[in-house]
């Protein structure tokens, strides 16, 4: 599903954000990406949805080499990937419903289909009662759940989350992680970047640890047993 072959990413000369990364993530896997701030977690995630291009190496996503996807066809890759950000990236002037509907609206889906899908995912993340609220009128945890709903509403094959609990307290973070578990249980490949050790230990999954752009450890499944 996702394969990295000797991937390097360099923003500045003689300084690597990612150094010789090779990895393989299978369909339906749940993977944690961990490491201290600046370790290269976000960069690695951005490479998957081609927000960044590798300086060297090859990346395959859904059997497509992302280096070879033309700019005008990039939207097809992005429609297969749901992305959740630490800062939620919700549009303040749109309601919860409208925010979640965006991926379907840009695809030109019919209103009835949009309605059906949005209502379904809002129920999945427990936000049906907030659908007409604006993001500024709901809590941080709810905002993050809106962002998750937006990421999964288009039936993506992969869900990527970059520090999704970075702005949430422990209780809300657990709640959010449980939602990700449910998403993964539906067969969606889930990759979450986090440096929250407590959560890593609570949710025993495959964990890849990055340090200064290099993988330093990898646990297949079970408790992360990683220290930062």
């Amino acid at each position: 599903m996702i394969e990295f072959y000797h991937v390097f990413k360099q923003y500045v000369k003689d300084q690597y954000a990612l150094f010789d990364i090779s990895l393989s993530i299978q369909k339906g896997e749940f993977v944690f990406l961990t490491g201290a701030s600046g370790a290269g977690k976000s960069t690695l995630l951005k490479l998957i949805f081609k927000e960044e291009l590798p300086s060297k190496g090859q990346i395959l996503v859904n059997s497509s080499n992302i280096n070879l996807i033309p700019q005008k066809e990039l939207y097809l890759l992005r429609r297969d990937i749901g992305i959740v950000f630490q800062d939620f990236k919700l549009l303040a002037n749109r309601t919860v419903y409208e925010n979640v509907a965006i991926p379907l609206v840009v695809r030109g889906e019919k209103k009835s289909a949009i309605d059906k899908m949005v209502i379904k995912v809002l129920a999945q993340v427990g936000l049906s009662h907030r659908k007409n609220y604006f993001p500024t009128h709901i809590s941080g945890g709810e905002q993050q759940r809106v962002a998750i709903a937006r990421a999964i509403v288009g039936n993506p094959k992969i869900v990527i989350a970059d520090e999704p609990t970075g702005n949430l307290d422990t209780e809300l973070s657990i709640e959010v992680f449980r939602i990700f578990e449910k998403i993964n249980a539906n067969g969606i490949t889930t990759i979450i970047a986090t440096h929250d050790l407590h959560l890593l230990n609570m949710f025993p999954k495959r964990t890849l640890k990055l340090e200064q752009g290099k993988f330093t450890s990898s646990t297949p499944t079970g408790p992360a047993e990683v220290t930062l």
Partner: protein
Amino acid sequence: MNLLQSTLNNAFISISRNKLINFLSFGIIAFTLLIFGIFNYLSYSLETFANEFSKNIEAIFYFKDNVEQPEIDLLLKKLKESLLVEDVTFSSRDQAEIAFSRQFPELKYILSEFKTSPFPASIEVKFKQEYNIGTKVISFIEDIEKLSIIESKQVNLDWAQKVMAIKKFISLVGMFLSMILIFVSAFIIFNLIKLNIFYRKEEINIYRLVGATDWYIKIPFIIEGALLGFFGSIMACGLLFITLKLFPAYATFMYNIFKDMISFKNIPLILFLRLLLLGTGIGLLSSYISVRQFLKN
């Protein structure tokens, strides 16, 4: 359908977001198009006037001495085939002499001094009395006059030609002013779209990440530019109509002088259509350039 609706919605939302700036730009676009419209209208009126003036045009072309008959026949054929020409009459040198003798019998003795007819051969051309062919007739006459077999011409079109010269001058001034003002309008729309792109950067980024196509993101901005131009031109049409209707009432003196030349009663619909097309076109083009420059992938 849903895609089209959401695209249009985005464009309207963007326009309604910056009401003051958009209203000012409508005003500037409207003013620009109004100037263009006024000059266009003046030019149209003068042309109509000149056309009216040049109805029933008759021209006589005099041939050079050494012109052979086949060359004359060729020109006669060409004239008869022209859609502008009603009738052509050829008059040979001898026929001209006879005509002179008939017209001025008391001067007949002068002709006896000459061995051959002193009059040149000529053709008299009557042009069709169709409305609006004046300018074409003038250039047609000028073309014939330039032929090597023609010595001179006689035509009573001085007035019409003078009016046409004024019309040309007004058209040129109008075009020059309009070009500058159109450039200003285009620049304003270009910058408005640029501002909106920066204002909606976050939103654009989200659209890209959720899989919107490039055109889904770009088209609302282009439509927005076209709408700015379109609404500006509607405003200009209104202002032009009011100006042309009210001007005679406030400038009676001017009106008396030019009332035959410039008819304030008939404002051609095509003029309004031109303004609408021009305004929308300016908006469309300048927003497209802005989008190309500031919405790179």
